[in-house]
């Protein structure tokens, strides 16, 4: 049961009311219980950020590391003992700003870990600065006049860098997300599951989604299934700049590292 994986002595967690991170934790733990993995043989890692606090609430061994470096630490854990299951929680800033290099190298090596990125398009922990996934024009404390730098597409980046499994969902799509995490956990090699999620406090507040429920409605409305998205692209249909495709983008078997011999 999912609850057994929680450190209930640490709850409630520090997340703001309605923060998507808590939901994502639920889905990841749900997926993990489905794999039947042993709690003593599963390790969570993270960097720094709101998202990266997640492992602290989970009752396994865990490393809450330095900002951006979780995948590099995870590489050490997994290569030193491939029989451990390794899952990384990270944020958009942690993964794609300061941690971008470890991210692409994790994908390239195709190291057998699963990375769940809670992408709230903002630096939540430090109070709402722009991140490399802040969409053009959106406001943050460091883009008070609207973001001028184009954002990354984390899915494309992971694919180009070589990851074996890449999917994107939102914190609204709890079932699909759970399934995607499950698939990611079981696919040998590097798995990235990007989860677009609400940060009502730091992002929503400045971008018209102060209420968690409004924010979630926004996510629900703008997430378009990959197949549908491709159709729309093909037919030249007008796609809202707020919309984005969700689904599984890659599942393949490039050479991997850190897969236990017996697997």
């Amino acid at each position: 049961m999912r609850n057994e994986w929680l450190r209930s002595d640490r709850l409630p967690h520090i997340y703001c009311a309605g923060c998507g991170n808590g939901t994502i934790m639920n889905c990841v733990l749900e997926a993990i219980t489905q794999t039947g993995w042993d709690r003593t043989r599963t390790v969570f890692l993270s960097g720094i950020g709101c998202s990266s606090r997640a492992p602290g609430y989970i009752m396994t061994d865990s490393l809450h590391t330095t900002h951006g470096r979780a995948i590099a630490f995870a590489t050490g854990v997994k290569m030193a003992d491939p029989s451990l299951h390794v899952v990384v929680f990270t944020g958009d800033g942690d993964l794609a700003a300061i941690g971008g290099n470890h991210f692409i190298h994790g994908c390239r090596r195709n190291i057998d870990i699963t990375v769940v990125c809670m992408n709230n398009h903002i630096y939540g922990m430090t109070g709402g600065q722009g991140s490399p996934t802040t969409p053009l024009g959106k406001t943050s404390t460091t883009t008070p006049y609207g973001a001028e730098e184009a954002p990354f597409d984390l899915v494309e980046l992971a694919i180009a860098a070589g990851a074996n499994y890449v999917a994107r969902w939102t914190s609204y799509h709890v079932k699909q997300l759970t399934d995607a995490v499950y698939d990611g956990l079981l696919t040998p090699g590097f798995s990235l599951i990007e989860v677009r999620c609400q940060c009502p406090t730091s992002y929503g507040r400045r971008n018209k989604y102060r209420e968690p429920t409004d924010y979630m409605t926004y996510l629900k409305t703008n997430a378009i299934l990959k197949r549908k998205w491709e159709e729309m692209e093909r037919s030249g249909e007008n796609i809202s700049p707020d919309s984005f495709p969700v689904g599984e983008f890659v599942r393949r078997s490039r050479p991997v590292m850190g897969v236990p011999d017996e697997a």
Partner: protein
Amino acid sequence: MRHEIRFSGFGGQGIILSAVILGRAAALYDNKNAVQTQVYGPEARGGASMSAVIIDDEPILYPKVRDPDTYVIMSQQGFEKYGCNTRDDAVMLLDSDLVHDRPSCRYVGIPATSVAKKELGRDIVANIIMLGALTTATSVVSGGALEKAILDSVPKGTEDLNLKAMKKGQELGIQGESS
């Protein structure tokens, strides 16, 4: 005269902003010296947050509030963490709906949050109500100075709402449940 004022509540209530406005009122419009500080942590979002202001006619050297004479407390947890060991001659303004305990010193209970929500339609101005009450229930800051400082500090378009909240607070500061 020296005043040490401590504010506490939970994250999102504008505890720090309250102190900033008070400090500004004292320094710019009451022509005193003022230093504003705070304690915050990642937990501030849920847990108890605290901010403080020292107001003095003399220059303020040591900047930290150590033994406040005035408290503004807006949550039960804030009361427990920052408001339970008051000195006897202190005075405490508390949000009477959210703080369930009462201090041993003199206090004035203000139903700031419910008034803000019900009468003004926005619970985020509860802190301004508390500030308003401060001008009538204590002598740390003048109403005129506070009004100017509020106008300096709040987002454009919300001036009226905030002034209304201040006025409401000034009334409640006189009428409020008190010991």
